[in-house]
């Protein structure tokens, strides 16, 4: 048939751009080159079961030389004063590398909390790469439900326990939000941080126990907004994970021969890969759109990208055949990361549920 039905009407979008700027592309190039040199997936795999999952040498270079730790920090506090768009590009690359670096936990979640609280000194230290911080909430907390920790508040101390915290294992400072909205800063040396076996080998979670730990009350912050901001940027990390899985699978099926043909010449696989590519194309648009942090854009990006990352990783494993089931191939690190971030900061279902009010689709 020659003429398709009309599928919608033209509408002007205004000025917000979904493209990458030149500055963003330069940042991407720098991060990608460093990771390729210092932390390829094979070396991530080697670290994964050691006591030092996080590559802190790499983090030093990333945070100080490339300056990613201070991207979101205003220039007056020693940061780059960049926007979430640049942080998103860094996250795409860190996702592509399943890089064990505390960028998301310290430079996004904790930094965003401190920005809300106006904590200049700590921001300055984080931006300089001198310290890292972690927001002590369960990584599986959602922006749509209260996530504060039940704390017993003493005289300059706090007592309590929170499980499933990401980034706590390498944090110097823990930011502990109480159930009533106040955030307490606790030096990590005053807390018991116990890493637990984690589904995601490259971003382990830990239990933080505070027993009358000296703590400084930093005031109140909108924890839901912080988590939403994080969820929006997590969509870019998920995009990076999906991109690596798709690219790696494309290379594999072009090379791997069965039945005297590259398996990538089999039409059933080609069609599945075309569909995956289309999912990733849309994940890219969704991730770019969510950078600004608008609630609806964040919900859409998480509802889409979390599932795309898992789906692409799962298909990547299937299309690698037995090879993908082996520990020695790094693919499983991506599958685990994808599945863990699907659960982190709200499941796709949680974000879709939020659309009931955000998009006026009441249940």
């Amino acid at each position, binding site marked *: 048939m020659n003429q*398709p039905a009309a599928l919608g009407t033209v509408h002007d979008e205004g000025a917000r751009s*979904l493209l990458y700027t030149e500055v963003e592309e330069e940042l991407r190039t720098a991060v990608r080159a460093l990771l390729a040199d210092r932390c390829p997936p094979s070396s991530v795999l080697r670290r994964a079961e050691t006591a030092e999952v996080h590559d802190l040498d790499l983090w030093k270079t990333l945070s100080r030389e490339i300056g990613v730790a201070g991207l979101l920090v205003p220039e007056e506090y020693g940061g780059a004063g960049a926007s979430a768009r640049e942080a998103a590009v860094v996250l795409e690359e860190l996702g592509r590398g399943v890089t064990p670096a505390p960028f998301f936990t310290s430079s996004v979640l904790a930094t965003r909390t401190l920005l809300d609280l106006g904590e200049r000194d700590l921001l300055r230290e984080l931006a300089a790469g001198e310290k890292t911080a972690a927001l002590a909430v369960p990584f599986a907390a959602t922006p749509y439900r209260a996530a504060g920790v039940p704390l017993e508040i003493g005289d300059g101390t706090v007592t309590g326990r929170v499980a499933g915290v990401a980034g706590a294992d390498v944090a110097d400072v823990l930011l502990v939000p109480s159930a009533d909205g106040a955030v307490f800063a606790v030096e990590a040396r005053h807390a018991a941080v116990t890493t637990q076996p984690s589904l995601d080998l490259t971003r382990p979670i830990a239990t933080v126990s505070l027993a009358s730990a000296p703590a400084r009350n930093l005031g109140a912050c909108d924890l839901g907004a912080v988590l939403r901001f994080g969820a929006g940027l997590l969509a870019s990390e998920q995009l990076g994970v999906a991109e690596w899985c798709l690219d790696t699978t494309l290379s594999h099926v*072009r090379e791997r021969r069965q039945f005297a043909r590259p398996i990538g*010449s089999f039409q059933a696989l*080609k069609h599945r890969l075309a569909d995956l590519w289309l999912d990733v194309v*849309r994940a890219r648009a*969704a991730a770019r759109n969510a950078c600004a942090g608008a609630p609806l854009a964040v919900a859409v990006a998480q509802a889409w990208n979390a599932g795309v990352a898992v789906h692409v990783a799962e298909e990547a494993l299937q299309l690698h055949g037995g090879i993908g089931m082996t520990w020695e191939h790094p693919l499983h690190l991506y599958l685990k990361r994808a599945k863990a971030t699907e659960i982190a900061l709200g499941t796709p279902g949680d974000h879709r549920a939020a*659309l*009931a009010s955000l998009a006026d689709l009441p249940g």
Partner: protein
Amino acid sequence: MRDRIDRLLATAGAEDFLGARFDAGLAWVHFPEGLGGLGAPRELQQVVDRELAHTPQPNIGRQAIGLGMAAPTILAFGTPEQQKRFLRPLYTGEEIWCQLFSEPGAGSDLATLATRAVRDGDEWIVDGQKVWTSGAHHARWAILVARTDPDVPKHRGLTYFACDMHAPGVEVRPLRQITGEAEFNEVFLTGVRLGDDLRLGEIGDGWRVAQTTLMNERVAIGGTPGRQGGGMIGIVSDTWRAQPALRTPELHQRLLKLWVEAEVTRLSAVRLREQLAAGQPGPEGSGMKLSFAKLNQELTGLDLELRRDLGYDDWSFRRSDEVDMLGRGPGYRYLRAKGNSIEGGTSEILRNIIAERVLGLPSEPRADKDVPWKDLPR
């Protein structure tokens, strides 16, 4: 350009406004001067379109093939005489165009088409049958691909023509669809004589010329992002909002899921348009039609289920000049949307194209590439 727009607005009357617009070079600014354009960058067209939004417009329904497919092909491959002859009446709507490509035996495998064109002095004699031709019953001209050499492999023996739809031997028959109406036609060509001056491009180069046409078709289909929550998802959402009694938790989940898919698909179209405007055309365009077809089909199916509507608006057999997906009833939309993944390249063909041209996957073993067309199994 601003001047030209102002001058056009100041001087042109309503009755031949489109002719005046063409003559002012504001029809398609990237076309050369004298052919409806100014040789300006393509991005500027958006500005012109915005400025002239409230003036008389081409009839998108009837002129879709002419504007979207014939015009760029004539520009790329036509002789100066052909360009002069065809482009202005095509733009003004004085002459409607249709497309004679698909055949009963050549759908996805267009290059296998069997309509013959045999040289006879300065003319070609065309015999064959075409199908799925929208607007053939209004058309003055058609873009036509025919086989001029059956002795070479199928892609190499084709030639591209402008076909005179008023020529003797052209017969148009309505083709009824599952919606009840006849939006398309079958076209029978019997001893149709076309002058060699109606040939577009070289003899045997028809496949390459047709690629230009088809590329423009697919870009046209996917290239127009709607507004957030608009189009088909808007129709379903409106029903959802207006009729709380229809809601169930199950339908709610499906609606939310499709709303997300519609939105990310729309965002991709927005991003694609930004890429084009920035002069960075990406491969993403190949996927837009695929996504829209799937979405439209799922949404129209959900719409019917949500309404629990077992009725239909009108089965009567009639011609339809334009497709108005959204203006008809839910049953019509459901059925008509089924064509979205077939017309203008099936979703299967589009997936092949993405896999091979975008993702660089190896092609399948093929038995039909180097065999003379006449020796192919059929």
